Structure formats: C-alpha cells, structure tokens
C-alpha cells in the first residue's frame, strides 16, 4: 500500500533532490467510508513551501496522500513540480491550493528584488525613520531593521496631494517622464509607489503606475495594496510587496503554467485562499501563508481532541511560528515581520528566525548566537552533505536525537561525521570539551529563542502557558517540545499526526476568502449611504470569488464598518447593519469600559469580505498502520544533560492507538521526529495524536 522510491534514480544535475516519494494512498476500509457524493477523479492538492522542505498532501476522493521534498530556493517551483511528477505522473490537479513562505523568507533573508521606492519629494526617508521610536526602551545601543530599499534607491517625486484629496502641486508630464527615466537608470527590478494622501486621492499614484508599465517590471501602488491612512505603515507594506513580488509572482505563474492545475489558489495570512493572479499581484497578503494554514489546521485538530487552549509551535527549517489559540486563531489588522510593518489582515502569528537550518556561530562578544541566518535547503545543514555551516539540525544529529538512519523514513541519509566536523570550530570557540557540549548549547539557545516567542503571545498577553497544551508541528518542533515544556511548565504536549505536513493539510482544507478595504472619511453617515459605498466593492469581490469557480449563490459577501468616536484613536470593526451605531457603542464598552452614544462617530472605512462556501476536500486521514506491534527498531545512545543515555528509537507509524512509550525515546516518522525526554511518556490517542505528559 505504500509505494516507496529511493533516491537512486534522481541524482546528478538536479537542483531538486527528491528525498522520498511516498504516496500513502489509502485503500478502502470499512472504518472510514469514502464520501459517496464526490467524483472519485477530482484531485485536490495542498502544498506548503517552506524554506527547507516543500510538503504536498492531496485528496482525490479515494483517500489522501503525502510527499515531502527538499525545497529548491533558487526556483521553488522545481520542488513542487518534481513532487507532482512523482505522485501523479501526467495527471493534472483540479484544484491546487498553495501555502508559501517564499515571500517571508525573501524579506527576512533580504533576498528580494532590487526595488526602487517613489515617494512624495521630501519624504524619501519615511521608510527609514519609521515611527521614530526605538524598539527596546533600555537598550544602550538601539537599532531598527535596515530598510529594504536603501536611500540611494528612494526617489522623491515633485507632486503633492493634500489631506482632502485636492492637489497642492500637480504632477507634470515632464516630472513623470523624468521619474520613469530615473527608475530605469537605477536598474529597478520592482517599484513601490507611496505618495502622501494617496488614499484620499490615488490619481498621482495611478498615473505613475501607468507611466511605469512599459518598463515591464512590477509596480506596487500603496493605495491598492493597503488603503489605510498613515504614510509609514502604507509605505512599508508597499515596499515589502514590491520587494518580494518578482520572486513570488514568477514562482506562482510558473507553477500555474507547469503544474497544469485547472485552478491555482494561494493561502493568505488571514487564513483564507485567493486566486493565483491576486496573489501574484499582492504577495504581501501571503506573508504568513503557510503558517496561517498550519494554525487553522492545528485549531481543528485541537477541537477534535477536546482541547480549547493550545500554543502552536511550528518549527521548520528557517523559522518558527508561534500562535496562541483559544478556540479559534485570533486575527489582527496589521503585523510586523522582522521589524517591518505590514498593514494587511492576518492571523495573530509571531515569527522568529529560529529553525532547524538556523546557523550557529559565536559572536565577537563570545556569545553563542543561533539564527536568524539559515542554511535553508541549499546548501542546507552540514549533515545534508553539501554545506559546512553548523545548524540546529546538526546539533540534534550530533546528540543522536535525530537518528541519521531514520530521517524521512530512512530515505535521506544524514552524515553524522559531517555534522561533527561542522560543530568542531564552534566547540573550540565556545571553549568546551566535547562536540556534544557545543551541540547541547545550540539546542538550549534555540529553545530560549522559541521560549521568548511563546512568552510574547502568552504571558505578555496575560495567558498562562501552564493552562494550555503545547502543540508542536512542522519538521523540527517535536525535537524541542519536551525541553520547552519543561522550561515553561506546559502540562501536556500534543503532537498531531504527520506534524511535518500539518500546514499543507490546512492549506488543502482552506476556503476561499477575499478582503478589500474601502477607505472613507465621514461623520455619522447613514447605514444606507454606507451600504451604497460598499456596493461597488461587494460586486467586485463577488466577481473575484466567482472567478474561483463558485456559483453566485455560493458566494457570501459581508461588510464591516471601521469606525471610531470622532478624532479618537484605533478604530473598531462592526458588521454593517442598520443598527451598526448601537453595535459600535456596545463593542466600545466591552473593550474600553465606556461608551457615549451621543458622541459623533467617524467612519474611516469599510471592509468588504467575500468567501466561497464549499465543503472542504474530504478523504480519509493519512494512512497509519494500526495493527502492528510496537517494535523498538533499536536502542541508540542519545545525549541528554551531557550524558549519553541508551534510548529506544521507535517508528511512530507502527504505534497502535493506546500504545505508550516511556522516555527517553525518539519517535521517528516520515515527516518529523519527536523526542520523548527522560521523565516523559507518550501515549497514542484515538486520533493517532501523540499525547506527552510527565511520567
């Protein structure tokens, strides 16, 4: 039932290393009936491209399957397409939903396009100054992130729109020509345009956009990508979009063409999917694409397991994403990634540059630093056989926690000696005796980084991790779950099935959802007038959702009012109904302990949200052989607390429901590895989740 293919046929000359092509296509079984309404031939695929691995899951009416391949950062489409070829041969997917961290990684690792920023003259430095505040109050030497566009490529445009949309200084045709010439001379690969008050009057941005079109490079207009007031946040969002766009758009278009998918959608940071063309135009909406899919899937698993409060830790090759889920994943209107403000709707996910591929080095001050630089997939950790950077993965290999022979079900060999060799210079710089000591230091530091991220979303928001369950997923989080739980007092750990594929599963199950903001500025408007303002955007969104293959009747459009008391600060969002004013007062009272129904209400905009209603692609859960006895494949020494301890290496996929494993043990499986530390025990629950508690 499980077709395995080794690496042998796929070596030389390929940038993509397919490490394993294993399609666990489930045969019919009586326990899980196939939904009879589905056409058995419909093939739906969910893909999550990370910095290191590309995960593929699919449902075709008969069942589900999976594949994990090494990412190909130079051309991320290769990994996906090779994976498809392995899995489906010539068969074309009907629906391909895609979650990608290509955008995020390009930004965090600063490998985006050579971008030129056009601003109103005199405001070229807004991007650099930000909000003028320093990130850390008591830091003796405070620094902000270096802007994605340096001063030399920020061009001031002679024009000026005023706050009310009137034109203070016209944009002349001559100025447009001269700006276009400068953009060309600067060798731009992408352009961001953010002019003052563009949301009040976008005419100048649009004219520059049209004039730049003949250059044949992507142009991001700030009023389109983030129609909100506040020049820094809008500039930063537009710049991030422009910076990653060529990379993301090229990637998505190549995938659309080469995969032959009838329909390609991309997961957004907000947890809903959009059409590929929208995503290619506005990749900033996908910055937390894969992570959003993972959190959505984790929330679903937790509900089934009867858990309400979980802390998700999604550790991949490049970064770790953490979220606190209390029944559902919280949303926010803006976020910051790597110190860059992004004002687009997203799930509340906190990202740190700590992953399996994070590179460890000793800094000039003699401190061991891990990340945010990552070895990615190419060259990858030293043990992958190409690079010589010492990474977190190498540390785990040296400690025996990532059994070299069992990586990806044994299909990819890890070179232990190479890991040791990579860690040797660190050992010397750290002045410790054994390479194992250096390795444990790396693990401690990376877990410290993860802990800080978890504290940001729990303790700092008044939530006690000790009342939540730690939910590790992604390829590497299971290696660090016990360490984190011990440090932070999580009473329990839940490791889902196929933890390394959870984001892809969430992406596969994701629904279509599109949001658009309509900027307004009016005081005490009637709801009828507001509804009229929303009408055009609602029609546009309806069309956009229908283009994704939904009948008009299956499209749901709802409108929200974004308002505040006149001249107040942050706006609240309430549904646009006849009684929206009363709802606003109620919402204000709930949040701020006060309300004043007599006070003038200032409406700053509408959010129109459309979604396509569809049953999620079904199919049985991923294959698990439940009827075999537990056979520890062997016992190997694993280092815990400086001591090599005899440790059982167990194939998780062999564990039946109800099976219990006492630590120390290492549970290997196709997509991930779970370390059961000494003093912990793991039990398999009815959904095949691993539940870890102190023994």
């Amino acid at each position, binding site marked *: 039932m499980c077709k395995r293919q080794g690496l042998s046929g796929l070596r030389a000359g390929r940038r993509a290393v397919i490490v394993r092509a294993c399609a666990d296509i489930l045969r019919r079984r009586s326990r899980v009936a196939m939904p009879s309404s589905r056409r058995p031939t419909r093939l739906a695929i969910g893909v999550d491209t990370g910095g290191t691995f590309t995960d593929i899951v699919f449902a075709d009416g008969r069942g589900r399957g999976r594949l994990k391949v090494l990412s190909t950062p130079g051309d991320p489409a290769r990994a996906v397409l090779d994976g498809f070829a392995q899995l489906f041969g010539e068969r074309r997917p009907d629906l391909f939903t895609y979650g990608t961290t290509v955008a995020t990684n390009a930004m965090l690792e600063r490998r985006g396009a050579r971008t030129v920023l056009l601003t109103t003259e005199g405001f070229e*430095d807004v991007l650099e100054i930000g909000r*003028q505040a320093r990130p850390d109050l008591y830091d003796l*030497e*405070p620094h902000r992130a270096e802007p994605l566009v340096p001063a030399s490529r920020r061009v001031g445009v002679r024009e000026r729109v005023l706050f009310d949309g009137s034109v203070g200084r016209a944009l002349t045709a001559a100025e447009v020509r001269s700006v276009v010439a400068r953009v060309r001379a600067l060798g731009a690969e992408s352009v961001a345009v953010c002019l003052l008050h563009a949301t009040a009057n976008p005419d100048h941005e649009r004219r520059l956009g049209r004039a730049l079109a003949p250059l044949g490079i992507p142009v991001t207009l700030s009023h389109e990508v983030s129609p909100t007031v506040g020049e820094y946040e809008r500039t930063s969002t537009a710049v991030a979009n422009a910076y990653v766009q060529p990379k993301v758009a090229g990637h998505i278009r190549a995938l659309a063409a080469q995969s032959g998918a009838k329909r390609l959608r991309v997961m957004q940071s907000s947890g809903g999917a959009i059409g590929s063309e929208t995503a290619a135009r506005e990749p900033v909406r996908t910055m937390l694409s894969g992570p959003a899919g993972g959190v959505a899937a984790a929330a679903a698993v937790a509900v089934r397991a009867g858990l309400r409060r979980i802390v998700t830790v999604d550790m991949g090759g490049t970064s770790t994403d953490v979220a606190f889920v209390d029944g559902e994943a919280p949303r926010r209107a803006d976020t910051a990634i790597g110190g860059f403000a992004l004002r687009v709707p997203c799930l509340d996910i906190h990202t740190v540059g700590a992953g399996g591929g994070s590179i460890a080095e000793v800094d000039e001050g003699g401190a061991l630093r891990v990340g945010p630089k990552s070895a990615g997939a190419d060259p990858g950790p030293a043990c992958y056989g190409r690079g010589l950077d010492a990474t977190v993965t190498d540390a785990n290999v040296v400690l025996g926690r990532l059994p070299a022979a069992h990586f990806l079900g044994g299909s990819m060999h890890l070179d232990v000696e190479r890991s040791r060799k990579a860690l040797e210079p660190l050992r010397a710089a750290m002045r410790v005796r054994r390479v194992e000591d250096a390795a444990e230091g790396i693990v401690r530091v990376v877990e410290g980084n993860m802990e800080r991220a978890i504290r940001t979303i729990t303790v700092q928001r008044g939530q006690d991790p000790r009342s939540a369950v730690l939910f590790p997923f992604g390829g590497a989080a299971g290696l660090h779950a016990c360490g984190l739980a011990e440090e932070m007092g999580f009473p329990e750990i839940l490791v889902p099935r196929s933890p390394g594929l959870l984001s892809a599963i969430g992406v596969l199950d994701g629904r279509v959802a599109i949001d658009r903001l309509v900027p307004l500025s009016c005081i005490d408007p009637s709801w009828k007038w507001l509804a009229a303002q929303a009408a055009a955007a609602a029609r546009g969104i309806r069309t956009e959702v229908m283009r994704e293959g939904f009948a008009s009747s299956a499209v749901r459009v709802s409108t929200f009012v974004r308002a505040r008391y006149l001249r107040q600060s942050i706006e609240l969002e309430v549904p646009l109904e006849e009684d929206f004013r009363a709802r606003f007062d109620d919402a204000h009272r709930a*949040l701020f302990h*006060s309300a004043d129904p007599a006070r003038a209400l200032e409406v700053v905009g509408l959010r129109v949200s459309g979604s396509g209603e569809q049953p999620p692609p079904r199919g049985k859960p991923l294959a698990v052989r439940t009827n075999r006895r537990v056979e520890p494949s062997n016992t190997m020494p694993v280092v815990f607390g400086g001591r090599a301890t005899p440790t059982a290496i167990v194939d998780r996929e062999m564990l039946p429901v109800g099976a219990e494993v006492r630590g120390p043990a290492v549970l290997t499986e196709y997509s991930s590895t779970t370390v059961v530390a000494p003093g912990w025990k793991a039990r398999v629950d009815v959904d095949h989740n691993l539940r870890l508690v102190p023994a």
Partner: protein
Amino acid sequence: MNRAATPKNVPRLSAVDLELFANRLTGVAEEMGVVLQSASMSPNIKERRDFSCALFDAAGDMVAHAAHIPVHLGSTPLAVRAALDAMELQRGDVAILNDPYAGGTHLPDVTLVAPVFTARGKKPFAYVADRAHHADIGGGKPGSMALATDIHQEGLRLPPVLLMRGGQWVRETLTLFLANTRVPDERRGDLEAQVAALRAGAARTLDLVSRFGERAVADAMRELQDYSERLVLARIGRFPGGTHTAEDLLDDDGAGGRDIPLRVSIRRRGRTLEFDFRRSGEQVRGPLNANLAITTSAVFYAIACVSGRDVPPNGGMMRPVRILTKPGSVVDCTFPSPVAGGNVETSQRLVDVVMKALARALPGLVPAASGGTMNNLALGGRDAIRARPFSYYETIGVGCGAGPRGDGGSAMQTHMTNTWNTPVEVLEAYYPMRVHRYGVRRGSGGSGAHRGGDGIVRDIEVLVECDVTLLAERRRRGAWGLAGGGDGKPGADEVIDAQGRRRRIDAKSSLTLAAGERIVVATPGGGGWGKAARTAKASAGHSPSKKGPRRAPARS
C-alpha cells in the same frame, strides 16, 4: 525608595512563578496602555503615545510599568506618593495632579491615580496610575511650553485633587480644568481615556486576585521588587570603587543664562550606589529647571539600561540607589521656578552626564552621547479652516551615540523619551499645517570607528497665523564622542518666510508665524565611538564599521 535591603530578601517564589508574575503584573500596565491609547483623542496621545501606565502596591511602591516613556516612569512613583499623602482614596475615587511642586514634573503631564479595592477590602489592595502629556494646559502660549520665568506663566497647576468620587466625575474639578485649556473638547476626551485605562488596570488586577488569591498577588508584588533589588545589588557589587565624576552643560535657559553645568559623582558605598549631583548649577530663570522627580527618573533610566534586560524595572530597583541633590539647584528646583523644559531637556542632559560618569567607571559598555534633546515644538492658535482652536505638540528624534557594538542608530527617540511621530497624513488632516520635509539629516553623526547616528530635518509650514514655541538643546555643542570618536553635529533651526528668505532662530524661541511661513528644525547627530581607523582610506564617505565592531574593548 531608600528602604535598605533586608536580610529577609531571599526568593520565595520559584523562578518560573517570579517570571510569570513579572509578566502578568507588567501585563496589567501594558493593557492599561492599550486602552489609553485606543480611547484617547489627541494625536499627541493616540499617535505619539506620549503617556505611561504603572501598577503600585498597597504601600504605593511601583510594582511594574509598561515600557512607555522613561521620564514618566521614573517619576510617577513620586506622584502616587504625593496623592496618597494628600488624601485617602476611597473606592471609585480618582485623584488628578500635575503640580511639579506636589508630585508632578511639568504641567502638561497630567497624572491620574486610583485605588484598587477587592470586593470586600476595607483598604486599597493596590493602586494604578497613568500619566499623559496633554497638548495644552493653559499658560502663556499654546502647547504650554512657553519660555516662562515663573511656574504661573506655564499653565494650570493642579495639586492632588479628586477628579472622580465614588465612580462619579467631580464636576467642579472637571469644569475648572477644562476652563483653563485652549482645547477643552480634546482634553475631556483624553481625560476619559485616562480614566478608562485606570478601570482596565483595576479590572485586570482583580482578575489576578480572583485567579491566584489576594495573598499570592500581594506576595508577588513584593517579591518582584525584592528580586529587582537583588539583581541590582549583585551588579553594584561589581561596580568599581572610587569616585567617577562627569560634567556636561546645557546650552542655555532661554532667559539669558548660558552654559548651565550639570555635575555628578558616582560612588559605591557598600551596598549602595550614590549619585551626587550637589555640584550642579543653581536653578535658572528660564524653564530648564528639573525637580527631584526628574533627576530621579534620569537615574532610574540609567540604572535600567546598565543593569541588563533581565532586571524588571520597579521600585525595588531603586532601593540600593541614593540620590543627593541641593534644593534650589537646577536638578532640584524650588517653587516657583519654571520647569517646562526640565522634564524634556534637562532630563536628557542628566542622562548624558550620568552616562559619561558611568563610561569612566565601566569603559566599553556605555555608548557616546545621543542627540541629547527632545526638540519640542508646540504650535497653536485658531484654525480658521476648521473653525476651532488648536494646539499641537511634537518632539523630534535625533541621532544615537555610537557604541562599542556598532554605529549609532539614525533618526530615533533616545533616552528619556520614546514617543512616536504623528504621521504626516494625520497631522495635516487635523491641523492647519503642511509638512514639506521629514528626512534624515545625513552626515550629522560624529565620526569614529563607529559613526554616530544622524539626526532629522523636519520642515513644517503653517497655513494660518500661529504661535510657535521651540524648546531644544545641543545647538552650540554637539553630542560628545567617546573613546576617540568625534562629536555629533549640533542642531540648527530656521524660519523660512513666504518669499523664501531664511533666518536662523534660537533653539529656545517663542514666535508668531504668519500663514505661509515655515519652521525648519534640524536635530543633532549622535557622537562617534572609537578613533576612525586611517581616515584617509575610509574617506569615501562610507562608514567603515558597517560590518560591526572591530577590536572593541572587552565589556567589564
């Protein structure tokens, strides 16, 4: 503050609980901040975030604060103390104060204090307080930052009085307050936001009490202060012996006095670190006087910086610290000296002089001086376009001093402030002004192996006739370099009239601009750090240190 460390100061909470309670109690203050900002009305509070929130124990000692504005945080404890000394706060009461001679710092900073009662408590279980900078509090000029020679010219003085009694507004207080400001509507909205924040803080504190019990929370509040005290004590133990002295000068007081000396001698006496400012200059005629609260907050800030990030800043942190001043001096002024700039300018120079002394004691840790001014700009008048009075206040960032770790950051708020800017798009929508330039002042940072950060240039045109107050420093002497680094460029200010003619203006100016005139403020750069290595080679104008520090001396 000077309660000695008792031998009983041994940890009772587990390390995890300590950390958790530190975050929970800080969470109370942080949530207050979120509420205050969200519900406030003036751009100065909602956009610039010129406010602070903190939680105090039943004795009135500070337990936790949210990371807001340092000059507020170190001085708010004295405001709470003054309120508690003046009155016995009952359930539902809120005290208001701003008097620098009764718990305040300068008049625009208005502090509200409220007790937190448990359901059956007879005495307050804790206190919450918030301080916000109101863009106008009366006085000679809009913005209440006038170049006064007497506190009465600076605006309305509020010694601690009741703003709410038993949950109801005290109409008399509110009416009196609003009658004395130029923009009463905005003031009222901001005050309501401050009250909402206190309610949120009280509610969150009571949440903790219901989850963990009164006893546990009270213990944790004390433990947290003891913990900070222990950490600071441990670090004081490593502080080198001897007396470490430094001097720095304020340019002038805006009323004729120049080169006002600030002097500090830092020495360790057993388990106490002593900051002796008694050799500083006499109080001055102009509004550059700092009261003891401000001097305390500057020391608090410096201790928080050099203690390392793991020390929770609270009342315990200051227990092993002793501050000596001479009443009637520029760092401990007496009634009725004007003080508007003490809070914003002298406080920055106080940090500079303390850091300079610390740099001598702990070489290789402290960076060169940062811009050393908040560049206060207040504009106000009648907005004929919107048919309403207006009062706008902002502070402008500077360059940071370079340090052993690398170049100084550019265009940032430093030391005693961390206010955000008002977005140009918001500014222009609310006020009759147009911004022409908001950019980095390239080349203004001091030279060195690590370059000082650059300042900012801000160019604002007024569209109606407008009263303008500028209150800024470091216009004659730049921020000092360290370890051989050069000084940063001093700031410079000018007015451009409607015909485009430029004229320099004093850094402490009070003027009336006609419609169409512009004020241009160029803020100082930070000092450089370390000798520039072979300047001839690095003459291309590039910073030689982009890649980080070279041959940095070891941190002590």
